[in-house]
């Protein structure tokens, strides 16, 4: 099966490159002095649903930087590559960008699988990777700048809030069967214990599986009073639909999700999600001038008046500016200069103020909890008063006074003790 699928993806990739090339490559002006950066997302294959929008947001940021005069007076030129929803392709394309094109910076990846696949390339050849997606943590690379949320930034406010404000005490944890939901579940359990709640079950369904009959029936019979969902991808739609079809309602038994975003809500139909909750640092509905202008510019950029924005997309956008500031601070666009320059770098992103942590190169973000409304938009019901420190090893006992990941790398001895 995989052989034929790959050739299909390749054919699609060429097509996608043909569409995007004319508008994105800004080769005309001062070609000799441009700073080249890699942009590596899946433009074809199953994950292109999301990753295409991340590539668009990255391109938009680059276009805006160029329109405002570039970086240190030099234009930024993007080298766009297609990861084709396949980790192996990701690895090959990363090698091409770093070894072949000799680039120092690449923006890319949505799934952890693709990030893990390119990581050895970046570490071996010392290049910087800017990764925009919320992920499971448990990683400490000096070659990656992580601008999405880690588990403590999605859960540390979420679970206490559910317990306190909704009065829920018995959770049913459900997720797709791979590393992200399983790591999230670990953090969930720690937080539930701390807040005097308990979990009645911790269940998983194959990634991409869309048959929810048995699982929802189990939820129904479990006696839980809230569902904590780490379900990912297209399964989300089938899950929420089955939930309603089995007569469950979010006012009695809310689904509290960590991955359900504007995209899935639009696909399932808002009526299936009304009243459920999601925790993310960014929602399209954030009521600020900066965000409204961001959404407007994004829609104009992709020429789709109905395009939705979401957390990983927003991170894809602002991380390019963090990179720009890092280059300008360090005065050079080499990997070592960027790594030094990006530590502690701050930016006013559409979601609010973001800062790159000096220690672990993850990003301070502001966790928000939103309730989905009938129009398919989120209503933010709770926001942290300030950005929260990223702790990628929180599931293993990391706290802000006992960091596992520092510029020296991961302190593995701390990991063993926990």
């Amino acid at each position: 099966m995989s052989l034929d699928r790959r050739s299909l993806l390749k054919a699609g990739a060429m097509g996608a490159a043909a569409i995007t090339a004319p508008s994105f490559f800004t080769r005309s002006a001062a070609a000799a002095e441009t700073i080249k950066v890699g942009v590596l997302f899946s433009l074809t294959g199953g994950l292109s649903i999301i990753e295409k929008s991340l590539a668009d947001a990255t391109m938009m940021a680059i276009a805006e930087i160029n329109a405002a005069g570039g970086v240190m007076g030099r234009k930024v030129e993007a080298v766009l590559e297609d990861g084709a929803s396949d980790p192996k392709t990701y690895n090959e394309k990363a090698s091409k960008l770093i070894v072949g094109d000799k680039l120092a910076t690449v923006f890319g990846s949505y799934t952890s699988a693709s990030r893990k696949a390119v990581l050895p390339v970046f570490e071996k050849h010392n290049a910087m990777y800017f990764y925009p997606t919320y992920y499971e943590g448990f990683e400490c690379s000096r070659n990656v700048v992580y601008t999405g949320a880690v588990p403590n930034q999605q859960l540390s406010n979420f679970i206490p809030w559910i317990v306190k404000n909704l009065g829920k005490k018995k959770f049913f944890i459900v997720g797709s069967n791979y590393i992200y939901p399983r790591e999230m579940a670990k953090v969930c359990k720690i937080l539930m214990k701390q807040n005097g709640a308990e979990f009645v079950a911790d269940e998983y369904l194959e990634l991409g599986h869309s048959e929810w009959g048995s699982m929802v029936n189990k939820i129904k019979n479990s006696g839980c009073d809230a569902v904590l969902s780490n379900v990912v991808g297209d399964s989300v739609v089938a899950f929420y639909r089955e939930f309603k079809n089995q007569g469950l309602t979010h006012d009695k038994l809310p689904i509290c999700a960590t991955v359900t975003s504007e995209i899935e809500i639009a696909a399932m139909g808002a009526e299936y999600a009304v009243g459920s909750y999601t925790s993310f640092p960014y929602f399209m509905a954030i009521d600020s001038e900066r965000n409204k202008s961001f959404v407007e510019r994004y829609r104009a950029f992709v020429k789709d008046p109905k395009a939705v924005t979401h957390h990983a997309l927003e991170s894809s956008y602002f991380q390019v500016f963090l990179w720009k500031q890092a280059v300008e601070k360090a005065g050079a666009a080499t990997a070592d200069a960027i790594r030094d320059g990006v530590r502690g770098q701050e930016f006013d992103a559409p979601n609010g103020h973001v800062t790159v942590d000096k220690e672990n190169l993850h990003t301070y973000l502001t966790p928000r909890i939103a309730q989905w409304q009938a129009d398919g938009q989120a209503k933010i019901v709770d926001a942290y008063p300030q950005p929260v420190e990223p702790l990628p090893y929180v599931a293993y006992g990391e706290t802000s006074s006992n960091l596992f990941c520092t510029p020296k790398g991961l302190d593995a001895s701390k990991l063993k003790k926990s």
Partner: protein
Amino acid sequence: MLDVIFIGLSLGSILLLVALGLAITYGAMGVINMAHGEMVMVGAYTTVMGALWLNLGFLASLPLAFVVTALLGWAIERVVVRRLYGRLLDTLLATWGVAILVQQAVRLEFGMSFFGLHIQGLGPGLQNVKVPEWMTGVAGIFGNQVNIYRLFIILVTLVLTLVTWLLMYRSEIGIQVRAIMRNPRMAAACGIDVQRINGLTFAYGSGLAGVAGVMMSGFKTVFPDMGTSMVVDGFMVVVVGGVGSLFGSVLSAGLLGQVNGGVASFTNDILARAVVFGLVILIIIVKPTGLFSFKGR
């Protein structure tokens, strides 16, 4: 307990809904139709497009999807499959190619996306299908809460199975189809227009997949890849049931559905899938021709 049986029944009916068309194309015509899953996908997109462009309701899409996919199936038979009868593995590869073409046509919006044009309802993204309000939620039957949508799927599957049975075993054309199944050359010698009947059979099988697609679109996710996994499940049912036996497909879908639902309820969904695949392997080892099969020539 009753809810577990109902879930099993519903899983079985979904399997059968997808497998019914395959049982006919594979069973009757000896064509491994890898594009069957894409027919399901086209059926689902017909629902999406029907609602967007023709303002069609969910139920009105059922006949439309049948017609659209039947026509597409007929065209595929005319252009590709017709030249490959008797070459089982070649049909597999050729229809696989067709499947990729169909999938890409939807993803690339018939190539329009190359020119920067966007056709609403197509493209690589997830699509939304509106389901009538009365079909969501539960109904109380004998003191049990029953999922209306799944009940409706069971009903549609029942009706389609009955119609297919009537067509195959109680109609003129069905006799001809079954004659071709047993021995195409002898059937031709008896004056049956094998080409015409094959074209119609393939179209009917594809049409059934289209109807399955409409039903899937209402409670699963609609996107270009959605058919790929379904075709695997479909073949599983047909192979276990016995190639060419409608009754065998019904029984095996029921069996696999109940096993899946039962194991999932008492352990978990991941194990349930493994058990189902294990069971399929076991059945194929013990009865290589499936549970019910006749000796074809």
